[in-house]
């Protein structure tokens, strides 16, 4: 576990040493701010704080996916290209410690980014808004989990190739597909009752966000996200083992 901590530390260092993390944070915060303004304009009153935050956290997830996909692409691909992966894998560190360390570093960056959006609530409280903390925090939890899935998948995509461009394309496309699976096939179509439609809806990242932003997170939704994260990280560890032969 100590090793995981060391690797997390180093990855955080790398995040803040490269401009890409700052650029992507700025990008995300810009879109997130725009979304916030849109929802605020729909009900321009600080009394509606919870409605506004619910709308925001229900829809900002998509940008979070893109943000996380892009910051995670370099995690393994770059180490493979520069040869530092050989350093890690010949040190007394286990493969899963490497992968977990990278994931945790991304999670910290994700938390930090989400913390910036607390500014919206602060602003509304200053002008007399009274938040109902339950739904607000559960909305954040939902966003954090969505970001976690994207991070896990980003690391997986990153382990597939030395080329960061390829990793980025894979990561972003799959995240987009996962996001839109539900809305594409389910919401109000004639097939909404079929078994495969239900299954696809369940597999969609977005369909699990609602319960969080409504303020009543379902345990099975948390379970869904956590399972995906563990699955993707587990696959990454296996890929690292397999790719050693190359």
């Amino acid at each position, binding site marked *: 576990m*100590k*090793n995981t901590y*060391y*690797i997390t*530390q*180093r990855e955080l*260092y*790398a995040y803040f*040493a*490269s401009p890409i993390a700052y650029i992507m944070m700025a990008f995300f915060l810009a879109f997130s701010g725009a979304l916030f303004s849109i929802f605020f304009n729909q009900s321009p009153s600080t009394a509606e704080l919870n409605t506004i935050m619910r709308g925001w956290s229900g829809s900002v997830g998509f940008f979070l996916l893109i943000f996380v996909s892009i910051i995670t692409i370099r995690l393994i691909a770059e180490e493979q290209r*520069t*040869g*530092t*992966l*050989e*350093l*890690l*894998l*010949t*040190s*007394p*560190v*286990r493969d899963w410690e490497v992968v977990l360390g990278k994931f945790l570093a991304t999670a910290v960056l994700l938390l930090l980014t989400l913390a910036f959006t607390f500014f919206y609530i602060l602003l509304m409280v200053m002008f007399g808004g009274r938040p109902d903390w339950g739904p607000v925090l559960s909305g954040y939890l939902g966003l954090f989990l969505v970001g976690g899935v994207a991070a896990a998948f980003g690391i997986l995509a990153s382990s597939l190739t030395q080329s960061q461009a390829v990793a980025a394309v894979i990561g972003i496309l799959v995240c987009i597909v996962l996001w839109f699976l539900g809305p594409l096939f389910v919401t109000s179509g004639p097939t909404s009752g079929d078994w495969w439609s239900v299954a696809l809806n369940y597999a969609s990242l977005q369909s699990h966000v609602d319960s969080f932003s409504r303020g009543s997170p379902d345990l099975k939704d948390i379970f869904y996200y956590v399972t995906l994260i563990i699955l993707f990280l587990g696959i990454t560890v296996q890929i690292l083992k397999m790719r*050693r*032969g190359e």
Partner: protein
Amino acid sequence: MIEAEKLTKYFGDRAAVRDLSFEVKKGEIVGLLGPNGAGKTTTMRMLTGYLPIDGGRAVVAGYDVVDKPMEVRRRLGYLPETVPLYTEMPVRAYLDFTAKIRGVPSKGRKRRIEEVMELCRITDVSEKVISKLSRGYKQRVGLAQAIIHNPQVIILDEPTVGLDPRQIIEIRKVIRDLAGNHSMILSTHILPEVNALCDRVVIINRGRVLVEDTLANLERQGASAERLRLEVRGPQQAIQEFLAQWPNVLQVERPTTQVTASIDSQGNLAPAVTGEEVDTSLSNDPDKTAHFNLKVTPDADIRESLANAIIQQGWGLREIGLVVPTLEEIFVNLITEDLARLEEENETAEDLEELESEAGQPVSRIRPAQDDDELDELDTEPGEIVETEAELNSQEIGHRQGRNPANARQRVYPVGKAQEQTAGKRKAAPSFLTASPKDRSSQEQDSGKEAILPGAEKDQNSTESERE
């Protein structure tokens, strides 16, 4: 400290390393020597546990690499061929990270980092970001990383590659300082490096050990067939005849050109002609000087008697000396022998003929035989009578070995073909798409040289560097 026992590694169905066995004792520095692509890096990666082992066994620092990988890694320092640096970090932070993951206890870690930086002579750049460092410094940071946890075993993959001579000397100093306390294995294809650093050498080619011996033994072995070098002023025809009749002289040669050999990634020998063509025609002008190489029977030092005799003949003796084979020559000989063995194993006479005709005719002297009769003419000297079948066979082998470097070269560099290809390429695509102006000019230079041997050699080198 390191025991490799019948190590085997397959890439696809090609064996990159096959039944490779050797040993490194405590405190020893062993040089792993071989042409590019011989399997040095693969072997080292198996020893470090980075690559899974397909067959055989490796024990490092007393632990089996497969069964106890963590124990091995704790006792092992490894510098891969591409130095694994996090270039965005300053040197000290980088070493701190590597020390942590190598399990250097937090108490004393700082002091250890200072020590290692001192040892590797990088203290003056300790706060600099690694990407800003010169190549020599980067290499030394890589070395520092490998020894930070004071490992029992150090594995260095081509530690001096790409450095300038001054930096090479620096790195060697560092490596020498480390010797004694650590068992070390270092790979290289630079022969003087082995001379400078190693106690013992393991020469490998095509994934197998050719020789495992001390340097001194190796040089003694190579010196068994002694040779003499002579420079004499006088009528050359007469001198040559005189020398040939001298007792203990087996053969008299006139050095024609200086040939140095290089070895490419397939382990093939590529003779490159350097220097100027020496006039080999025998003249009887008494004021001309000529060089001779004599093959003499070993253990008979004829230098003094021969020198006296030459002077008595009234010729000017300018130089006489023993030719001691360099490590380089020994190495090239070993690889050449190994290649000859490969030819024996794999190729029938038909294949050889086919290859020769494929290769075109870069030099007019070498061309495919028209028919069997012509081959016979070439193989046996006129007037020479072969008594037994065994004798005939042995002659053939000798002949083939002698010609092997030429064959090998032809196999890798089909000169005529290469020329066609580049010409075709240039036609197919507009040049601004395929190459920058600078590239184009060098391409043209190459194609101009392809007609002669060094050009082909150069072409091969450049494609190789591209691949890397």
